[in-house]
């Protein structure tokens, strides 16, 4: 039988003014289960708390109800008070008779009556409370960063800098990501490679960082602090430890028809290749689709020229497991496919390129050696038209409904760079809106217009079609009320960006949620923007939403700091108010698993023993370290097997009963 003590706080005159606290305390004395009921001016004060502690000891209380301010204010205070007196902290309930009563009801009789009802409801609940223990779970002090672009690199560097080990899993043969492909960066126009490659080198040289390139995450199990991840490292057919990156193999390789991914397929590469000069790891990789030796068994030239003896045609995929305390998704983006936008002639003319292709064309290490020439005939262009919002802000179903955010700025950058290097080239930009919210962004855009004479045209292009060796760009100029038909030598499309397709699969493995555009969702859009709702999973870079480099780096650092905060703990203290499955009642139907936003529920085949029962059943298990206690599962469960500790079905119904009495 429970022995409940009720402590009614005056809160000075805050409560005692509009509520007759003595009458409340008196009324509670006749409630079954209540063995002690008293009042005090300030329950939360030192003296008030010690009165509670004394009463717990003197009356051997098993539960405490404090009638006071909102539990959001002092629930923790009184829980600690109870704990100091040797009572389980979860045997405390608060009746909110200030915010919900004394502060809103002026009539003393009304306020007093309501306070009594609220106190009775709290007693009814605490009668059914059970002592709860906050559990702990150990934290493995190692982080995994998935994706080796600038987001992943920055996150890894920051985590390593704090002294924790971190692995980067990158699916391509080198880290660097999209930023490595860029020529210059806005709004400062510093060279992308110049600022990125030192970071890549830092990451490679940092002994806390292990770069696992040409690899993919295959499976994730476990939970915050204790993930087990299966990683598949694809066969490179080159021994990473032996290869010196000298490039002799590339010179001799007879198969030269592979599309150069780094240059967006604008030129070709050999079957054995190093993606680019500053690749990290600077190790060759054989493309098995192109390699004659692997395809036909005949060739082996690279093996012969490799003085390090690094070539190994028999290499196989390597699959291994590692343990991590935290996982960061930094899977980045890609430009969308332009199949649905054929009006822009992308498939009809080589001289219609995407902005990312244009980056490569402008880049000194690119396919044209940095010379601005038309891909079709290598001629110098005189008229270039840029088209913005290609597939962005598109709700017709062909493109993406969101703004890709970076296009306005990089288009201004491209326009400016062209005009700067080739003043003879006329540059036109079709835009819907120019969006430049960012430090020095609008100044940058205005500079393109005012200083560099870029022709910004408010309107969209309806179609682009080749005519002779020119491209006709037909679009509207809304400001001048004209339909234009420009003759252009090149057209550059600011294609929308979308999350990398690998993210969807990863989200499933991580039980991390995604929005309808396949961007990872945050735990809270404002307050927890770098955490996924799944505990222990963090978000870095464009995988969470479109952003530019400074934003990405900032978010990468923020994600790192969240990871560091997690790894700094030896144990995680878990909230004991979590869901619990009664295995005797569980049907194993998986409905609860489907609504759990945290992936806290898993299923096991288990021998169930109960009165008259002994059989193997599929039953739900809640991982208390992962569950956040929302209770979505409890309502989904028709048999009532799933219940929430601290807010159990019976507790809530007891409150309902007490209130409605």
């Amino acid at each position, binding site marked *: 039988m429970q022995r409940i003590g009720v402590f009614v706080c005056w809160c000075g005159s805050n409560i005692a003014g509009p509520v007759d606290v003595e009458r409340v305390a008196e009324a509670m004395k006749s409630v079954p289960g209540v063995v002690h009921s008293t009042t005090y001016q300030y329950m939360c004060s030192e003296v008030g708390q010690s009165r509670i502690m004394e009463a717990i000891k003197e009356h051997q209380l098993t539960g405490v109800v404090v009638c006071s301010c909102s539990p959001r204010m002092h629930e923790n205070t009184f829980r600690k008070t109870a704990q100091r007196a040797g009572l389980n902290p979860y045997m405390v309930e608060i009746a909110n008779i200030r915010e919900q009563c004394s502060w809103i009801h002026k009539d003393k009789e009304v306020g007093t009556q309501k306070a009594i009802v609220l106190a009775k409801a709290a007693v009814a609940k605490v009668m059914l409370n059970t002592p709860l223990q906050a559990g702990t779970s150990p934290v493995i002090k190692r982080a995994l960063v998935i994706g080796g672009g600038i987001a992943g690199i920055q996150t890894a560097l920051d985590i390593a800098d704090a002294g924790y080990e971190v692995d980067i899993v990158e699916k391509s043969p080198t880290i660097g990501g999209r930023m490595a492909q860029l020529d210059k960066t806005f709004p400062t126009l510093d060279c992308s490679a110049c600022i990125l490659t030192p970071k890549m080198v830092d990451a490679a040289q940092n002994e806390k960082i292990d770069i696992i390139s040409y690899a993919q995450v295959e499976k994730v199990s476990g939970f915050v602090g204790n993930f087990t991840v299966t990683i598949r490292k694809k066969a490179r057919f080159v021994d990473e430890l032996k290869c010196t990156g000298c490039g002799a193999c590339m010179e001799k390789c007879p198969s030269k028809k592979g599309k150069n991914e780094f240059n967006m397929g604008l030129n070709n590469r050999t079957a054995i290749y190093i993606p680019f000069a500053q690749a990290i790891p600077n190790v060759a990789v054989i493309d098995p689709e192109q390699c004659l030796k692997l395809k036909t068994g005949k060739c082996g030239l690279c093996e012969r020229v490799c003085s390090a003896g690094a070539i190994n045609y028999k290499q196989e995929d390597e699959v291994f497991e590692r343990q991590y305390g935290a996982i960061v998704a930094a899977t980045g983006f890609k430009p969308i496919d332009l199949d649905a936008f054929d009006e822009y002639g992308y498939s009809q003319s080589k001289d219609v390129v995407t902005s990312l292709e244009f980056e490569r064309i402008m880049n000194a290490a690119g396919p044209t050696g940095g010379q601005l020439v038309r891909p079709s005939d290598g001629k110098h262009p005189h008229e270039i038209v840029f088209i913005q919002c290609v597939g962005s802000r598109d709700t017709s179903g062909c493109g993406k409904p969101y703004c890709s955010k970076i296009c306005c700025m990089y288009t201004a950058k491209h326009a400016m760079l062209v005009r700067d290097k080739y003043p003879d080239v006329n540059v036109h930009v079709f835009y819907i809106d120019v969006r430049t919210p960012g430090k020095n962004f609008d100044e940058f855009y205005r500079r393109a217009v005012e200083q560099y004479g870029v022709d910004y045209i408010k309107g969209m292009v309806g179609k682009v079609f080749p005519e002779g060796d020119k491209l006709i760009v037909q679009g509207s100029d809304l400001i001048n009320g004209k339909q234009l038909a420009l003759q252009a030598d090149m057209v550059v499309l600011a294609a929308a960006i979308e999350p990398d397709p690998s993210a969807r699969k990863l989200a499933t493995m991580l039980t991390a949620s995604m929005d309808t555009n396949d961007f990872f969702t945050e735990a809270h859009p404002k307050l927890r923007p770098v955490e996924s709702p799944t505990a222990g999973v963090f978000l870095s870079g464009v995988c969470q939403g479109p952003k530019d480099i400074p934003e990405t780096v900032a978010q990468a650092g923020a994600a790192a700091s969240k990871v560091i905060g997690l790894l700094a703990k030896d144990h995680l203290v878990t909230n004991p108010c979590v869901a619990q499955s009664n295995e*005797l*009642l569980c*049907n194993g139907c998986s409905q609860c698993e*489907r609504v759990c936003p945290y992936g806290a529920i898993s299923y096991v085949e288990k021998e169930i023993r109960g009165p008259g029962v002994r*059989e*193997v059943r*599929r039953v739900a298990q809640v991982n208390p370290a992962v569950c956040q206690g929302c209770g979505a599962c409890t309502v989904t469960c028709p048999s009532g097997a799933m219940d929430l500790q601290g807010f159990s079905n019976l507790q809530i*119904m007891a409150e309902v009963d007490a209130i409605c009495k």
Partner: protein
Amino acid sequence: MQGTAQLILERARELMQSGQIQRVLGWEKGEFEHDPTPAFFESEEELQNFCYNDYCGANLSKYLIAASKLEGKTLVCIKPCDSYSLNQLITEHRVNREKVFVLAVPCPGMLDPVKTEGKDLSQGERKDYLLDKCLCCKGAEHKIADETIEGPSLDLAPEDRFAQVRELEALSPQERFDFWRGELSRCIRCNACRNVCPACSCVKCVFDNPNSGVSSKASADDFEENMFHIIRAFHVAGRCTDCGECSRVCPQRIPLHLLNRKFIADIDELYGEYQAGEEAEQRSPLVNYQTTDKEPSDALKGRG
């Protein structure tokens, strides 16, 4: 029907002989034509009592929960409408697909012994004697099958299964209240609706569990009658395949399916057409959401 039964039987015998299946779940001959009983047949000898006739309306899929725990495979005779329930049970992991050999059997519409009692069936149309659930037949297609027995199917344009729901919705609140009070007050809480329901597969029902806080063995008053049926319908909402067994077995002939169909109609209207059991591994609308879902206040707008 005779022919179909023969085809089923032959196939079942073959599969049993070849050891591919351990037992057959079908219907056993009764005393009369109209009273076959669902039964497991463990041997060829037992199969002599197998029958498949016009009165095999019972949905066998729920028995597979028990059969999943037995050694070896069970061949089950599944009519088109039963196949939805089976898919749903597989989705919910209540039936182990590996343990089941689904023999899809054709259904010409099943007869209601109450309607045929004392009648000369050669008089009137077959439609007049069909089980109510067959009048809203979901079609001749099986949604799950390992093997299909061909045979005659129901040649009847199905009635609009929501017509009665709409009729009720058109009444005034007091008329609706009176209608349901009249119907539910006949409930004797025999639990036949619950126990036959393939979606009501809980190892222990909340209403049987003294620790649930809501258990009750008999409906002591109007409230408990309402409570039982509202909660039962809610618990199967999004999972109910509209197999119609609840109303078929109700000894008091309470149109319980009209509760389930209300949920189905609302789900279809608010969250998009959804047929539970259409295929395995579907996500029920109650464990799903769209950020653009209608607000309750908007969904409830309209007549008082």
